[in-house]
């Protein structure tokens, strides 16, 4: 199928700090592939540092957060599309995928294409539903309790020995080595993300993640497995290396088919030391923040996602190169206060004149 010209691609998730959102890495991959005429950023906060990445984004708009009614987001996108027609929108935050899944057809009517899973698929992989999904798909999952009040915490802690992992209902995780730590982390997670908090058996081993992309008929177009090397105190990868692990890729393929998944995803595993068993512990309905590693290893999954969204046939990727490493570094940006003021005051800023 002939390639369609992609005029403008919008990317969300522009937080670029210590726990970066994937938007900056996705835009970088798209720039490398020269897949779109313009790349614009959509942000919820004028202080997300990715909004200053003038080398990646031609313009940035503020849009309503996913916690606001979907109608508000739709209205804002319609307003933006009236002046800057958007061909493809790549959402990169977990919290917004369900909203975009709901708006998919209405956005298509505005000429904005997305490659997202069904709302049902998004729900089936959320943290609370994950044990059931793993059981059905025949994938190992660490023993997990859903804790709805701190007074129940000690009861569950008695079910096993320390350490335990406490996870927020949306994000964040802490390893607790004592009851005191468990209670302190429970309070922090409940304050930040609300209840419930998940209490999960700690599995000792290597953390391995897979970034994948599924076509509209739920076939895996590409997938890259990475083993985390340097891990920040918050458990995020500061560096990692691509690994060849057919078993991991096979598990992801099984999950994609079981969920009838469409679009990007990240599946996180721990390979247990001693047994070598892969425990699945999270599925994110988006590209990971380290997606540029996949591009560097030979699979530019964001570029392929844009092609699929445009309705093109995309052949399955050739195997990627193992042994490619990513190291989280930082880039500095300088701009006039006028750019920031414009974004904060009128909700948009344009770095390049023709944007």
């Amino acid at each position: 199928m002939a390639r369609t010209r992609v005029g403008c691609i919008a990317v969300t998730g522009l937080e670029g700090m210590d726990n970066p959102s994937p938007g900056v890495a996705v835009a970088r991959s798209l720039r490398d592939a020269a897949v779109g005429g313009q790349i614009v950023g959509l942000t919820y906060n004028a202080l997300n540092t990715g909004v200053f990445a003038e080398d990646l984004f031609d313009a940035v708009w503020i849009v309503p957060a996913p916690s606001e009614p979907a109608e508000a987001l739709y209205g804002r996108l319609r307003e933006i599309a009236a002046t800057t027609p958007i061909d493809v929108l790549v959402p990169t935050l977990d919290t917004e995928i369900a909203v975009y899944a709901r708006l998919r057809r209405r956005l298509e009517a505005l000429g904005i294409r997305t490659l997202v899973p069904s709302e049902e698929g998004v729900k089936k992989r959320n943290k609370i539903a994950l044990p059931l999904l793993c059981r059905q798909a025949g994938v190992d999952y660490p023993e997990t309790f859903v804790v709805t009040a701190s007074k129940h915490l000690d009861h569950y802690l008695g079910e096993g020995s320390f350490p335990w992992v406490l996870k927020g209902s949306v994000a964040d995780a802490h390893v607790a080595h004592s009851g005191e730590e468990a209670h302190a982390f429970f309070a922090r997670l409940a304050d930040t993300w609300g209840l419930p908090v998940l209490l999960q058996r700690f599995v000792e081993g290597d953390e391995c993640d897979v970034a994948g992309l599924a076509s509209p008929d739920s076939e895996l177009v590409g997938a890259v497995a990475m083993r985390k090397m340097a891990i920040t105190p918050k458990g995020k990868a500061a560096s990692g290396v691509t690994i060849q692990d057919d078993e991991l890729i096979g598990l992801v393929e099984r999950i994609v088919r079981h969920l009838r998944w469409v679009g990007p995803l990240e599946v996180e595993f721990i390979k247990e030391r001693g047994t070598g068993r892969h425990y699945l512990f999270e599925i994110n309905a988006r590209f990971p923040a380290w997606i540029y590693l996949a591009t560097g290893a030979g699979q530019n999954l964001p570029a392929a996602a844009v092609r699929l969204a445009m309705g093109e046939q995309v052949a399955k990727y050739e195997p990627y190169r193992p042994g490619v490493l990513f190291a989280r570094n930082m880039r500095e940006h300088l701009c006039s206060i006028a750019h920031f003021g414009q974004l904060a005051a009128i909700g948009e800023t344009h770095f390049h004149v023709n944007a």
Partner: protein
Amino acid sequence: MAVTGLNVGDNPQPGLSVGRCLRASGPGGPALLGITYDLQWTGVHHREVFETVHMVPPPWLDEETFVERLLGSCREAGVRVILPCLDADVAVLARHQAEVHRAGVRTFGPRRERLEALWGLWCPVQWELGAVTIPRSAVAYAAYEIPEIAAAFAYPLLLRSAVGEIATVSAAGDARVVGGRFLQWWGGPLVLRECVEGEDYQVGALAHEGTLLAAVGVRVLTRGSNGSTWAVVTVADADLVACTRVILGHVRWTGPVLLEFVKETWSRRVWLMGASPRFPIWVGAARAAGQNLPAMAVEATLKGRVNRARQSTAYEAGLVWAMTSRDEISDVAVLAELGNTGRLARGEPLAVEGRRG
């Protein structure tokens, strides 16, 4: 020249930014040696800044071995100036200044007693220095000490780790767990400090024996979850510069320094909330605003005197500086080379293959 502080994970150290300022200081720029303490420090892959990278044991494990290996690396690479970018490095080099000078290597940093004077600003009682109020502080070295020390303060309470991570805690249990983690990860001291509500400002400055040579003030726009600074805007604020002058004069400071201030919301009173004996992470903003602090420090070091004509606290206000995390693509062979030999020579960046649009 050698530069330390190459870790750029979730709490970026200033080494890369300092290296970029030196690169921008003149045609060609100086040859730069990056010093890393860990194979996993991500800045070692940043080939555009450092010609070579050497790995030496960190100063907090064994001070004598650190100095010996650091000076060995300087000899091997022909280094004449070291710019230490971590608080711990500055302290060790201040203690071993004579030995470092004997090895023919120069630094532009404080003597030991001046560093102790800077730390001495923090007391168990609130006090005032000119127009600056310095809040009550206490220090813990072990997790079991935290509850007793914290009992003397009201919540919320500010905890500051040895590497500058910040957390606000709201209860004794929280203080013990979060503070305990900081001590476990980074060692002591853990600073406990009163919280002050207000606007967040910082000043990056350079001084010589208490005389302010250069200073740039910024308003902090955004901080990471660990308290690290990710975006600032330069501000014209004569009060902040005046406060900086008073503080550095009081401790008779020599070298770079980062001072953190809060302007209290209701009273507009200026509080000193942090003082680090090094360049700020946003030193690139200072350079763009007209004050290349690392280049000025190198000039002062090499000439052995300070060029008074260059003395200036004028800079461009309204310049926004922000950092974004970017993944550097490298090869596992790079780590093998650094791990096996302790040395990494500059090479061409790895080609990114298999791009497809």
